């Protein structure tokens, strides 16, 4: 059963169609990868789902409810949380307060201070950052800042998580750790939709992949189907082979 569904989703920046007529769906409990060359519209699609940009053309539904016209905080409280390509932690705040913010405001119901603190602590423990609770977020390494973002997103008690290039800039050990973490999150029952360039990660954990190119969906399917898809190789995967050779 699809938990998130988009129909005819379109976004123009001036004359440029950043996302054009994209239909997509993500099923409950899935890990879906969203790939494509730079500028394909992946982050724009995420921004439309999380309402960072208003959705004016097309329709997105979450658990059957229309998301058009909602504000980011409402989307978050409905159960969709996200991380950002460029980490957006609150630099001057300690790690714990960063996560506490998600716990306090992310859930649809008002929760007590003690509950929020407990949830924040749990989220930090989940991403293995408990020892750094009191450290100002800006003093952390990139990998750990990404963990803070993840913990903050988890503290909002999401049913669905949008991960925007979680693995970018991480070394290969860190990528493996992140992959493990993402699988652990899915096992908690949280559906995952992720933008990623690290093919090892995509091929390793995604059940299904959607490919965007110039704002259009050009392919969709299992890892194997995508890996053999001629068009995808031409516009995206091929480039990497060239770059690698």
């Amino acid at each position, binding site marked *: 059963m699809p938990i998130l569904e988009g129909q005819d989703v379109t976004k123009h920046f001036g004359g440029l169609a950043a996302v054009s007529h994209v239909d997509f769906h993500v099923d409950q409990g899935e890990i879906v990868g969203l790939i494509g060359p730079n500028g394909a519209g992946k982050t724009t699609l995420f921004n439309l789902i*999380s309402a*960072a940009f208003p959705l004016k053309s097309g329709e997105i539904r979450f658990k059957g409810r229309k998301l058009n016209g909602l*504000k*980011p*905080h409402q*989307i*978050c*409280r409905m159960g969709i*949380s*996200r991380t*950002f390509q460029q980490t*957006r*932690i*609150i*630099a*001057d*705040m300690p790690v714990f*307060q960063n996560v*506490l*913010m*998600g716990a*306090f*405001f*992310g*859930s649809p119901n008002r929760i007590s*201070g003690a509950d*929020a603190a407990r949830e924040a602590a749990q989220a930090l423990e989940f991403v293995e950052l408990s020892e750094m609770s009191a450290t100002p977020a800006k003093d952390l390494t990139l990998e750990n800042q990404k963990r803070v973002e993840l913990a*903050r*997103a988890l503290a*909002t008690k999401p049913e669905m998580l949008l991960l925007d290039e979680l693995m970018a800039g991480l070394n290969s050990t860190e990528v493996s750790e992140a992959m493990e973490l993402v699988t652990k999150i899915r096992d908690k029952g949280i559906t995952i939709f992720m933008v990623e360039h690290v093919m090892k990660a995509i091929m390793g954990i995604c059940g299904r992949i959607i490919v965007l190119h110039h704002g259009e969906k050009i392919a969709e399917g299992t890892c194997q189907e995508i890996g053999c898809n001629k068009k995808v190789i031409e516009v995206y995967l091929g480039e990497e082979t060239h770059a690698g050779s």
Partner: protein
Amino acid sequence: MNIATFTSKKFLVPGVLVLILVMLATVPLYISPGPRTLLIDFFMYIILAVSWTMFSGPTGYISLASAAFFGIGVYTPALLYAQGAPLLPLPAVLVAAGLVSFCCALLVGAATLRLRGIFFTMFTFGLLEAVRPIIQYCELEFHGARGRYVESIGPNGVYYLMLFALVAVMVTAYLLKRSRWGLAMQGIGGNEEAAAHMGVDTTRVKVITFGLSGAFMGITGAITAINWYYVDPSSAFNLNYSFLPLLMALVGGMGQLYGPVIGALGFAYLRWVLLSTQYYMLIFGGIMILFILFLPGGLASLIERGRHRLGGVVAKLWKGGGAEQHANT
């Protein structure tokens, strides 16, 4: 051991605060009129600086509309508590001043808080420059005089009202800072988009806090009007009431609750000392530049740094003392 418990931080800070409050509350019994006037002035600036910091400190939205809300507050008793013909009892007038400023701030906030950075600052500045001539025009056109007289309640009455407002604003600022609301505002200041995506209703938090900060400025304006007897648009909507709270908060430091308080005290004192020299604005400007360049965290950051160092020393002594105690038992 009892002494140790009492000197622990938990009791020390509230104890000192209560002591200061008792001293301030009893001051009119033995002080002469001169220093009392000065104290009223100090209180007023502290309230303005703290209520400005309440909103602009954590969110980073630099408002220059303070004088507009202050002036609206000044004009509320000028209309409702006019000399010889007060329309409402005094408490109602003060509540009205707070409410009117609150509503104005809500309107302004709702219209402008989408603007960021310098655009917001310029708009709030423009607001002040727009309100003053309008009031000036209306007064001349419909009232037929430049100024108005306000009913007097005596200097001690003004003193206690101002002290009451001071306590109210400090308590509110303290509670806000500690609450989830304060966390939300800090989040907005740190990264507004991230805060919104974590479920913070950023517009609501910003607008309501801006309104609350405006309300305190309005109440302060109302008490000040009673203190002045005579009010006119150029004294009520004076640019100084926009810039001074900002300067005081900058110099005092916005990271700590007491930052704007010491900033306000320092500046109000300097102002009092230098007012006769004509150069005081020049000196203010110089001080501000020095602070922005060399101490961006304000005096509060200096104090905190000193406290950390002192704290380390005290902790060491404490440990030593503890060890001794263990040895004794």
